[in-house]
């Protein structure tokens, strides 16, 4: 997975150098294009889909044509309309976008949550899409797409990034969903052991402000039904007394694959200079 991302980064960097920067406005417009594509699919908007997909569009790896893609989308729309309670929840995030005046590449993660997963339980699937676009007749059109499911390494890598975002946004629902019920954490500041409930309460009551957070030097190992992620977690912000802080932690997170999904089982950090 890391190799795949490295290839993306190298490809995009090279494209950027060769053809000039893709402006922030260009990237916003392309992300809006992608969202409009999703909305057209959700609403069964055949006319919009017809505009979004180029006539020679090909969906990989199954070599799906424009017509077939639209028919498949419409069929799913009709099924969802007939059974709204069984409709999968779909969202896209972690966008990486590059462009030249006439071509663009959009890649993003897909998160699909189905209510009827393994054993009738809710289940979430992750994949990554790459869309290749061309500007034709003054408007962007998708000429091809590829989609592949994330492997366990990819899922875990994104869980780490999502966790960092949850910390910044004080999103306790992420902890609620992704921490195992028998989770335990050890504070990098005090060495105190905390439970899932205590970590959630701690996040709710935390008066400090995190202005910046990132996980780097990430290394993921999968051992049987468990995974160990090590890395460096840096946070910058202001503590509850308003004093600025800039902390770096060397951390180890242990995950367990339970009920068909990865859950955070243990986490421990140690402050480093």
């Amino acid at each position, binding site marked *: 997975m890391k190799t795949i991302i490295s290839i993306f980064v190298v490809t995009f960097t090279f494209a950027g150098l060769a053809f000039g920067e893709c402006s922030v406005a260009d990237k916003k417009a392309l992300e809006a294009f992608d969202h409009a594509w999703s909305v057209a699919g959700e609403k069964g908007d055949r006319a919009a889909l017809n505009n979004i997909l180029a006539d020679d569009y090909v969906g990989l790896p199954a070599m799906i044509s424009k017509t077939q893609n639209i028919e498949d989308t419409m069929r799913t729309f009709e099924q969802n309309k007939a059974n709204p309670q069984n409709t999968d929840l779909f969202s896209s995030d972690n966008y990486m976008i590059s462009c030249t005046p006439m071509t663009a590449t959009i890649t993003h993660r897909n998160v699909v949550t189905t209510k009827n997963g393994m054993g009738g339980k809710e289940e979430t699937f992750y994949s990554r899409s790459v869309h290749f676009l061309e500007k034709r007749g003054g408007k962007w059109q998708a000429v091809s797409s590829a989609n592949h499911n994330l492997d366990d390494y990819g899922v875990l890598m994104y869980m780490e990034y999502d966790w960092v975002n949850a910390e910044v946004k004080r999103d306790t629902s992420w902890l609620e969903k992704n921490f195992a019920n028998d989770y*335990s954490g050890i504070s990098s500041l005090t060495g105190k052991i905390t439970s899932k409930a205590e970590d959630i309460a701690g996040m709710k009551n935390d008066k400090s402000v995190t202005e910046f957070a990132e996980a780097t030097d990430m290394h993921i190992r999968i051992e049987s039904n468990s995974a160990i992620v090590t890395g460096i977690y840096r946070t910058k912000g202001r503590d509850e007394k308003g004093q600025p802080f800039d902390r770096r932690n060397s951390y180890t997170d242990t995950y367990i694959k339970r009920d068909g999904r990865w859950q955070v089982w243990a986490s421990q950090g140690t402050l480093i200079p």
Partner: protein
Amino acid sequence: MKQILFTMAITLALPALILCQTNGKNANKNGGDEQSVRQTINDLAAALGRNDVAALDRIYADDYVVTNENGEMTNKTTRLAAIKSGSLKFESVVFSEINVSVYGNAAVARFRGTSKVQSTGGQPLGGDLRVTTTLVKTKGRWQIVAAHVTRIGEQ
């Protein structure tokens, strides 16, 4: 007739006996694993206290990594070499407050470690510590694949 009834009774009773044994075995499985993990942690304390490289070689998985109380990461080869050369020497090691969670072939053991350590180079090691270890059962044997150490009450 008696013979037939006896055979039937045996035939019916055997699966029940086997079922009971299986259930009993399964019921004890987690408890047995938890005991084995605890034993591995106790063996670790003893091996560190003796600076016993051969024992540690069995306890640590080949891809073992530890993040020590200074946040430095070390793999099995480097750690064992340091103990063997004497550049890392444990004078005393006591583990307490051991808490074990087992799920399938994976386990997490958290405990308090109090140690006196002599090390050449780098920052001082040892003291009052909190440790999380991740263990994996391979070929029926629990081994430590990762450990993380933090000093207690630093702030």
